């Protein structure tokens, strides 16, 4: 198969808004899958509910578009029942970390052989822009009209603390790095978590001073801080500004995995 054969031609264009970062993440993921040489007969895509979770519907492989927050639990059943299948989960920040937080940490703990790609737009896109557990403190959304009062999750930190074998964060600007990260995730036995920060011009950008799609991409570009550099800064006692995005590989280890191909 070649990269573009992974798309369901008959369903494109997809429903995403103009400039939505989700499409980019689908591209990068499929590119990584394609690099692995996996076939559509052995690969299964699973997702929950949200704009991000619509991704599997545009891919020719078998796919299960489940209930909100539960993608990883469904994927666990698929992978445990048939470890020969390659199982990739698309999810959003709300789906993964709000309603789905428990399945997320448990899959990390079990270190089950899934690759989870989270399109983190820091908002509930599908339902029109409510705050999510990754909405930055102070940011505006329809349910935080006075600025979010709650702290945001560090999804990668959580995944690492819960036990995942591979954890990485990039943004929709970092397409090459994202492909590489997803690919490493696919290669790693056990649980791999790739967080891709994406722009949601319609529901996040618009309310939070990113008037144009490009503004948020420019922000990703200028505020990304490679983890190695961040570590160095920490060692040197420098404070990392709150609005910087630490990108890179955040965990890579070799704990015993569950559900790997025999």
């Amino acid at each position, binding site marked *: 198969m070649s990269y573009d054969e992974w798309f369901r031609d008959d369903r494109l*264009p997809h*429903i*995403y*808004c103009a400039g939505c970062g989700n499409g980019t993440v689908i591209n990068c993921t499929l590119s990584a899958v394609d690099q692995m040489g996996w076939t559509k007969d052995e690969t299964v895509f699973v997702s929950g509910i949200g*704009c991000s979770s*619509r991704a599997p519907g545009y891919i020719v492989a078998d796919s299960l578009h489940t209930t909100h927050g539960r993608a990883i639990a469904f994927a666990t059943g698929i992978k445990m029942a048939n470890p020969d299948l390659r199982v990739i989960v698309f999810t959003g920040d709300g789906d993964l970390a709000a309603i789905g937080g428990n399945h997320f940490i448990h899959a990390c703990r079990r270190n089950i052989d899934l690759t989870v790609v989270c399109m983190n737009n820091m908002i509930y896109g*599908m339902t029109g822009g409510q705050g999510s557990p990754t909405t930055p403190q102070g940011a505006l959304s329809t349910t935080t009209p006075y600025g979010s009062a709650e702290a945001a999750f560090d999804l990668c930190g959580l995944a690492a603390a819960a036990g995942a074998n591979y954890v990485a964060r990039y943004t929709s600007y970092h397409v090459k790095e994202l492909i590489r990260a997803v690919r490493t995730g696919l290669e790693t036995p056990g649980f791999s978590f790739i967080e891709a920060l994406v722009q949601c011009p319609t529901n996040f950008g618009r309310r939070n001073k990113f008037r144009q799609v490009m503004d948020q991409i420019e922000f990703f570009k200028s505020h990304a801080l490679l983890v190695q550099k961040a570590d160095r800064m920490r060692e040197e006692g420098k404070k990392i500004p709150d609005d910087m995005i630490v990108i890179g590989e955040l965990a890579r280890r070799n704990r015993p995995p569950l559900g790997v191909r025999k």
Partner: protein
Amino acid sequence: MRTEIRFSGFGGQGIILAAVIVGRAAVMYDNKYAVQTQVYGPEARGGASMSAVIIDDEPVLFPKVTSPDIYVIMSQEGFEKYGVSVSGGAIMLVDSSLVHSRPSCRCIEIPATKEARESLGRDIVANIIMLGALVAATGVVSREAIEKAILDSVPRGTEELNLKAMKKGFELAEKVMHG
């Protein structure tokens, strides 16, 4: 008398706001009854969006539009999805800058987007031009009512611009109607 109006266009044109404003004008300033509804859903995002308003002197019982008396169509896709099944007795206002097709019923062509850009410098007020035209062409609500309802509904600082757009709509419609 029950009057059913349907609006359609693409996302970002303010199709829903247009219907809300007409409904508001009828209820708050013309002392009539109105029900406004719209189509929701992600599928509506990329494609055509639709909203509707029913205006009546008595309370509106059945809240859904079944055969619109008036159409306001602002995109070609909107025409194809929501304007094509028009009945002969209806009136359709089209944004002639964006809609290529024409209906079988009476049609009023308003180059709203073109005018919005060219004479007002902002595409975004095309819907208000259409509203002005709608009121001028059909009288579903009074001019005073629509003016007040527009002022209630637009962001602060843009009142001037929107009133200009509304008046531009009056003008364009009058031109079409009276030659």
